[in-house]
């Protein structure tokens, strides 16, 4: 997408968001949109390490939940001091903590094969979940409640505010992702993904690039998870570390197409919306089952995702012309 078109899209999305906040009446739509945007950020973040660099993260739920729990812990501490900081503080905290976790996990395991990294991310998610289960300060296994603050000016309800925050962060994630794809850094990541050994021999500092990639992913996932407690008002380890979050983070990019910045966006919007519809109309178990089936089907039949399919179709049309 050319620069002009892209920035038009960003500004357009922003305007639509503002209009939605100002004019919308049915609160359900904000709740639904929040979830879809949340999964969009997670998908875009996952793809930076997964699609761009070729390293699979199974522990997306871990990053997400750590940010959520950071918010809970920080909120409890600051409330104890009588403070009510703006959302930005929690987002920053989540971003920093998860960025460091990304960096740490990477440092421990990225010298090994991609397979070990993937397993390590899964391991880390479980370790964090166990910690959350056993840490009474944040409620342990019983979970923790958080009070809904008053909405800031210009927003008639708190969920509208949360939606808008998510929208801004989604656009930020998309801008970061697109920037990476077109940069020297992004080209280096592609080389690592295509052939890490060759990349190293062509002067690419593979370990450094992988670490940056993991950190960026961590930061974005942390941003996505930080407002979550305010959205649900009740957080427990079971729901925060939910497998559904991890699967969606993988399924959405794979369905959309992992090689491009817009693949995860398309996947998130399509799959996210479908999930909302199915959840509401049929059942939430079926919805979750279908995500698994769709993921496996796409992985087998269309590994380059929808974008890849469209590209193939275009190429075939061109060669016939």
């Amino acid at each position, binding site marked *: 997408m050319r620069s002009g078109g892209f920035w038009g899209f960003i500004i357009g999305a922003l305007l639509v968001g503002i209009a939605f906040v100002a004019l919308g009446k049915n609160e359900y739509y904000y709740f639904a949109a929040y979830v879809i945007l949340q999964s969009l950020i997670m998908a875009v973040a996952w793809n930076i390490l997964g699609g761009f660099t070729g390293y699979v993260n199974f522990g997306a739920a871990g990053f997400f939940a750590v940010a959520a729990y950071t918010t809970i812990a920080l909120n409890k501490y600051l409330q104890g001091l009588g403070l009510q900081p703006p959302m930005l503080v929690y987002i920053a905290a989540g971003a920093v903590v998860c960025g460091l976790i990304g960096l740490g996990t990477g440092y421990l395991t990225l010298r090994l094969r991609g397979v070990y990294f993937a397993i390590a991310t899964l391991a880390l998610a479980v370790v964090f979940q166990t910690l959350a289960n056993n840490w009474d300060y944040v409620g342990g296994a019983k979970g923790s409640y958080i009070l809904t603050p008053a909405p800031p000016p210009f927003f008639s309800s708190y969920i509208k505010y949360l939606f808008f925050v998510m929208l801004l962060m989604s656009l930020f994630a998309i801008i970061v992702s697109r920037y990476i794809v077109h940069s*020297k850094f992004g*080209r*280096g990541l*592609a*080389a690592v*993904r*295509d*052939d890490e*050994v*060759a*990349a*190293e*021999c*062509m*002067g*690419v*500092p*593979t*370990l450094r690039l992988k670490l940056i990639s993991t950190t960026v992913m961590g930061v974005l996932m942390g941003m996505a998870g930080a407002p979550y407690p305010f959205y649900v008002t009740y957080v427990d380890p079971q729901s925060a570390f939910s497998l559904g979050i991890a699967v969606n983070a993988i399924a959405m990019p794979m369905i959309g197409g992992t*090689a491009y910045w817009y693949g995860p966006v398309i996947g998130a919007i399509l799959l996210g919306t479908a999930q909302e519809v199915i959840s509401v109309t049929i059942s939430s178990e079926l919805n979750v089952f279908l995500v698994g089936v769709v993921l496996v089907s796409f992985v087998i039949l269309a590994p380059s995702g929808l974008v890849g399919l469209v590209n193939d179709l275009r190429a075939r049309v061109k060669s016939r012309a």
Partner: protein
Amino acid sequence: MPERILDVKSLTKRFGGFVALNAVDFHLDEGERLGLIGPNGSGKTTMINCISGSLFCDQGVITFKGADVTRLAAHRRTRRGIVRSFQIPRPFRSMTVLQNLLIPMEYAASHSGGTTEAEAREILDLVGFRNRANANSGRLTQVDMRKLELARALAAKPQLLISDEAMAGLSSSEVDEILDILFKLNARGVAVIMIEHIMRAVFRFSERVIVLDAGRKIAEGTPAEIVKDPEVEKAYLGV
């Protein structure tokens, strides 16, 4: 008086109990053309891996342009000027031919003023890829992949190029094409270590030849000397 560009002393590498390289010594001068031959399994590829940094040796010292690079990461050695091509070509398959060159251009050659797109096209001309800049690198023929491999190595602005069996399995005229590229490269001042089994190419190209067998250097000299060396004959014919 040509300067020593590469100095390898007592290079030793073991894999478990197996000794792949056993205290190998050799050196290379600036702009020199060195042939490296030996029977299969003699340690040639392990040697390149140790010099380029894909593997770290167990013992020994590798000095490049006067600096000790023995424990330096591979990508840093490439930036300093040691570039290797792979025996089985390893293109970046999601990229076009030109994009493949961009990687070493941006990452390896950037310190020495980088290369521009014009220079990249010049490199493509050198290997005969003039019109193929936008071809998908994953769908090339064997010989074209070998050429891409070399072109990519050139884009890294090497001072020492290690060519690992770039000609294996090619036809006679294809061998000459590759040889031609290597000669042109050398004419620009790049030192070349050529690992090959195709003897006529080795002897035509090399100023000096080193022979490895079972991890040891068993002979060193001009091509003419090597051909007559009884140790070499024994290594190849097992007599």
